C-alpha cells in the first residue's frame, strides 16, 4: 500500500511531529513498506474471532476511593521546563 507525501504530512501533523522536508520521501517509503507488511493480515478471515485486548482476558480490579497522595508539587515540578507560580507554562493558547 503506497502512501504519498501528503499522507505522511497529515499523519505527522496528527502526531504533532515536525519532520524535516528532506526526510519525507524516506518516511513515505518506510511507512508504505510497513503497511505492506501489516496488510498480510487482511488475507485471514477473522469475522468470528473476538478481539483480544489482554492475553489473560483479565478484568479490571477496583481501587478503594481513598486519598493516598499528598501535595508533592515541588518534587514533581523540579523536572518541568517552565513553571511560574506553581503553573506549568506554555505559549499563549488562543481559543
Amino acid at each position, binding site marked *: 500500500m503506497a502512501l504519498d507525501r501528503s499522507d505522511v504530512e497529515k499523519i505527522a501533523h496528527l502526531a504533532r511531529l515536525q519532520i524535516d522536508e528532506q526526510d519525507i520521501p524516506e518516511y513515505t517509503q518506510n511507512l508504505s513498506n510497513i503497511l505492506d507488511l501489516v496488510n498480510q493480515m487482511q488475507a485471514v478471515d477473522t469475522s468470528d474471532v473476538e478481539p483480544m485486548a489482554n492475553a489473560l482476558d483479565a478484568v479490571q480490579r477496583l481501587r478503594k476511593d*481513598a486519598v493516598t497522595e499528598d501535595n508533592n508539587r515541588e518534587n514533581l515540578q523540579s523536572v518541568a521546563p517552565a513553571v511560574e507560580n506553581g503553573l506549568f507554562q506554555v505559549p499563549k493558547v488562543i481559543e
Partner: protein
Amino acid sequence: MEWEAVIGLEIHAQLATKSKIFSGASTAFGAEPNTQACAVDLALPGTLPVFNEEALRMAVKFGLAIDAEIGRTSVFDRKNYFYPDLPKGYQTSQLFHPIVGIGHIDITLEDGTSKRIGVTRAHLEEDAGKSLHDEFPGMTGIDLNRAGTPLLEIVSEPDMRTAEEAVAYVRKIHALVTSLGICDGNMAEGSFRCDCNVSVRPKGQEEFGTRTETKNINSFRFIEKAIVGEIERQIDLIEDGGRVIQATRLYDANKNETRSMRSKEEANDYRYFPCPDLLPIVIDEDYIDAVRDSLPELPDARKARFIEEYKLSDYDAMVLSGDHNLATYFEIVAKAANDAKMAANWVMGELSKHLNQNDTTIANSPVSAEQLGGLVERIKDNTISGKIAKQVFEVMWAEGGSADEIIEAKGLKQVTDTGAIESIVDEVISKADKQVAQYKAAEPDKRGKMLGFFMGQVMKATGGKANPGAVNGILKKKLDALCD
C-alpha cells in the same frame, strides 16, 4: 415559515468521589495550583491508572435511576488529542462500551404537561485540567488539579424542542444526580456543566438541520438564554439566505450571545482505541442488585410523598422536590415547625427570594434549615407575627443567630397578655373621638372594615408586637360596646 428547534444536551457531572478516577489524589475544589496533581495525574513516564470503585458505583446508581441498561462489560477507550491541560495526550473515556446505555427521564413543564426525554448513554471519563490565559503576558498557565476528576457524561437524545424543555431536562438531571449523592451539582465551580446541541428545521421536516454545539454554560438561566439566542440566530441566518455552519460556540454571559470557537470542518481525528492499561469492567447481577438496594428516594417519588405526607399542592411539591438540597431543607423546616404548608411558603417565598437576590444557592444559604424551622415554629405558636418574622429573618440572614435569640435581643416577642392589650386599646379609643363617632354612625355590617384604623394605631403603639387576633377581638368588643 414556521420553524422548529431540535435540542440535544451533553451534561458533564463531576462525580463526588474523594479521590480521582485513576489516582489517589484529592478531588477537593479550590486548592493551590498543581498541589492535587500526583505523578499519575501529571502523566509522568511509567505511571499507570487504577480505577476508583466509587466512580463505578455512582455511574451504576445513575443508570438505575434513569431506568437504563447497565453495561455488564464496559471498556475504557483512549480519545487521543493534544492539549496542554490533557497531560497524557489522550482522555480516558468510554466510546464503544459505556457503563450506562439507553434510558429516559420524564420532565414536567410549566403548563403541567409532561414529556419523556431519552438518554442515549452515560459514560465515565476523566476531567481535564484548567488553562489560565490571563495570569501571564504571552503565556498560558496550566493547573492540573482538576485533571483526573471523575466525570459522568450524560448524553440525551435530540428529543427537546424548546429552551423550556431543555432547562426542565437539565434541572431534572441535576435533581437526580444531587438526590443520588453522586454530584454536588455546583454549577459555578463547574461540577455540573452542560453543552447544548441546537439545530432548526422547518416545522414538519423529518431530517435535522446543521447543528452547533454551545459549550461553557454554567447556570440554568444561561442555558435558557443561550438556547433561545442560538435558535433565533440560526433562524435569522437561514431566513437571510445564509447557512448554519457546524461549529463549537462559546456562550458569553456578559453579552448574552454565543460566538464561534472552532469550526468542526477541521475536525479532530481522535483515534479512539481500548485503553491497554485498563481492563474491561465486568459487573454481575448481584452487584447491580446491591446498588439498587442502596438507592435513596428519587425526585419523582419524593414529589408523590410530599403530596401524600405533607398535603402540598402539586405545584409546591414539584418545585420543592425538583432540587435535592431544597427538598431536604424543606423537610427539616417542616418537621421543626410542625407545619408543612407554612414551611413550604417560607422556603419557596422569603428564603428563595433572598437566595435569588444574593445569587447564591441553597447549599450556601446563610440561614440553615434548623434556623428557619425555629423561626416558623415561633410564628406557629404565636410568639411572633408573620410580619415580625420577616424582620427576624432579615437579621438571621445578615447576622446569624437563632429565632429565639433574635426575638429576645430585639425585644420582638408578641404581646399576648390581654390586660396589657386592653389598656392600649382603651388609650387608642380615648384619643380617636372622630373615628369612634364614624364607627358608631356606620351600619353594623360595614363596621368590620373600619377596624383597620384602630388596629394600625394599636400595632404602632406596640411596635407591631401585639397579637393581631387578640387585638382584633378586644377592639371589636370595646367599640361595639360603645355603640349600644
